[in-house]
């Protein structure tokens, strides 16, 4: 929990990390996503328990939020702090996740800031549906996503194994993530 956004200041740690990430700092981006993930997890657990829904889908909501943030990160206005931008997306995705679990009326989630003070680590046994959604991808795309995420391979190693260029792997990865976002959205409807 080294980084917590300070309200109203774009010089807060999250905004700084995102600025660095957009400039190409992969390490900063990874730390930012881990950080946001911990706060979203705390928020999702709280909302799920208030709605009387089990914890089973919490990791889904976290990952869906991270993917949404990821796919739109280049449209964030750097003149505004990142925190509220993230909360808004997270709130929306958690409410979606609850609707998916059949909760028609969902209490609005207000105090996101609270969760920043109490970030929660991932439960190593909690798995998300992302694996199931991966099945909807083309085989090559699925292979690339699995290789880089689950197997922790680098882009370079994946490219070598598949005899592709690194650029082609990254392009395929990007397409795969976009379709994953769309598949997730469809699973809500």
């Amino acid at each position, binding site marked *: 929990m080294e980084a917590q956004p300070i309200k109203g200041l774009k010089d807060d740690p999250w905004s700084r990390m995102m600025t660095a990430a957009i400039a190409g700092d992969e390490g900063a981006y990874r730390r930012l996503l881990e950080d946001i993930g911990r706060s979203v997890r705390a928020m999702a657990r709280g909302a799920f328990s208030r709605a009387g829904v089990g914890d089973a889908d919490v990791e889904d909501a976290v990952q869906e939020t991270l993917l949404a943030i990821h796919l739109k990160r280049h449209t964030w206005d750097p003149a505004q702090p990142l925190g509220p931008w993230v909360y808004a997306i997270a709130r929306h995705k958690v409410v979606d996740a609850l609707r998916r679990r059949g909760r028609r009326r969902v209490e609005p989630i207000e105090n996101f800031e609270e969760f920043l003070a109490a970030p929660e680590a991932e439960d*190593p046994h*909690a798995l998300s549906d992302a694996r199931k959604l991966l099945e909807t991808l083309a085989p090559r795309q699925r292979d690339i996503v699995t290789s880089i995420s689950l197997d922790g391979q680098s882009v370079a190693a994946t490219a070598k194994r598949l005899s592709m260029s690194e650029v082609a792997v990254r392009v395929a990865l990007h397409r795969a993530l976009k379709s994953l976002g769309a598949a997730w959205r469809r699973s809500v409807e």
Partner: protein
Amino acid sequence: MRTSDFINALAADPVPEPIRLGRRVAVALAIGLLGSVTLYCLLLGPRPDVAAASGTMRFWMKFVDSFAFALPTLLLTLRLAYPDAKPSALALWLAAPFLLLAAGVVVELLVVPQSEWMSRLMGATAIHCMITIPMLAAPILAALIVGLRAGAPLHSGLTGAIAGAASAGVAALVYASSCPGDSPLFVATWYPLATLICMGVGALAGRWFLAW
């Protein structure tokens, strides 16, 4: 899949070029407006008595009303393209065109005898107005929706509807010099109805194209 694994995939994804939504929406508006003005020139043109009409207050009020509606709805459209949109103060500005319109209606009711109210309200071209404003709004709405696709609106239907309202406001500005109905009674009845059509189409387009 575990979240830490998932983050590996996200971090390996190349960084896209940053997008400035304000610029996108401005460019979209310019392109849409060009389309709208082209339609106006090809199909409509100014009304025959435009010189005489331009000496009247009623004629110019249409422009003022339309502008007062177009400006806040356009800004609101842009604001809604961000997930953390706070439309509060801007939404209040939306009251301006309605107050202007209401004031115009009150004055009209005071200066025009009651027997003429209905004929003023219906004008000669009510249906024409209802068709023409959405037609002139179509290129603007289409361009705005394309421009907004880069954004991250949380409420895709609402964002589309407000974009529809904005396109109707701009279209009304384009149409005003061709529209033969000047009475505030006419404007207050038919322009909002045409706007509602645009908002409905915008809401549908938003649900289709702006969800992400």
